[in-house]
């Protein structure tokens, strides 16, 4: 029975009760009216049960679907294997580049400090140092492979999260700026730009060409062209 019909039936029963002065009515009629009201309430609660059941079924289905989607995400695998693995790879990249830089810098500093009294010995020392610097550059191959692994992990996570978000119809919620984000914004911490400096050194030089304490407006305007 439709909700509106149930409501009408209950309302009708209540109005009938109200209109009939039950004190002056025989007990049989009062009983009859009570039966009518009880029937109406039975319909009402019956329909209510069905509606609630439907809602609960929808929620249960939604939770079940969400659970399946989360299972598809493989969150345990991401947390226990992929992210720690990517983190280790990045640590290795930092370590490898530091080692290579250390080697190259040390060799360069040694070369700068070499005495060149004996040209033969000097050339031999330079050749040896250059060879060690070239060897050190092999880090690039390893770091390239490690970074590729991290990129693959990030793509995997992005793909899964996107699928999950699309399946559940999730939209981004507005959130408060964190303290770290606020500091980054206030301190203009943008980090290195992709594909080289965003503002070229020549443009910066143009701003510092004069002695004015303020940036020259023409130079600033040129930066925005």
């Amino acid at each position, binding site marked *: 029975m439709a909700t509106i019909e149930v409501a009408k039936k209950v309302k009708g029963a209540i109005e009938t009760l109200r209109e009939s002065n039950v004190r002056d009515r025989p007990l049989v009629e009062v009983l009859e009216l009570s039966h009518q009201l009880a029937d109406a309430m039975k319909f009402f609660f019956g329909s209510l049960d069905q509606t609630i059941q439907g809602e609960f079924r929808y929620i249960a289905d939604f939770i079940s679907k969400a659970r399946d989607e989360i299972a598809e995400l493989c969150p345990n695998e991401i947390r226990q294997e992929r992210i720690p693995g990517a983190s280790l790879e990045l640590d290795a990249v930092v370590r490898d580049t*530091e080692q290579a*830089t*250390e080697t190259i*810098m040390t060799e*360069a*500093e040694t070369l*700068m400090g070499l005495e060149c009294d004996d040209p033969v010995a000097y050339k031999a020392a330079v050749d040896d140092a250059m060879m060690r610097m070239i060897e050190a550059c092999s880090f690039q191959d390893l770091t390239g492979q490690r970074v590729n692994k991290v990129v693959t992990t990030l793509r995997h996570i992005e793909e899964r999260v996107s699928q999950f978000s699309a399946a559940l119809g999730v939209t981004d919620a507005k959130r408060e700026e964190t303290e770290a984000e606020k500091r980054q914004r206030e*301190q*203009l*911490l*943008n*980090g*290195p*730009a992709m594909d080289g*400096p*965003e*503002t*070229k*050194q020549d443009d*910066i030089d143009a*701003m*510092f060409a004069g002695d004015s*304490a*303020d*940036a020259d407006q023409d130079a*600033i305007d040129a*930066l*925005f062209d």
Partner: protein
Amino acid sequence: MAVDMSMPVLVVDDYKTMVRIITNLLKQLGFQNIEAASDGKEAFAKMQEQKYGLVISDWNMEPMTGYELLREVRSADTLKTTPFIMVTAESKTENVIAAKKAGVNNYIVKPFNAATLKGKIAAVLGDF
């Protein structure tokens, strides 16, 4: 007036490799007295103990950034005239303008070469 190559120069960067690169370049240019600090806070403390003839600072450091250091230096009576060059990967126009307004003497974007560093030091201190 000739640049005093024995004056103390302070290099501020949280990456030891960058400190080493700049220090080597400065030595090649003839500067003999080079010190280092790993962030603005350490640099400011050093500057209160000793007068430096030049500060070369990175921007992105914690707990105190190079930008904060610059503003602290420019607001301190005894330090405000210290020549200050920013050497940083922060290359957005807003960064350059903010540094310029805060009183930086010159600005170098990373990566840079020895000629650029020499040119900017010369622009700030005079030819050497």
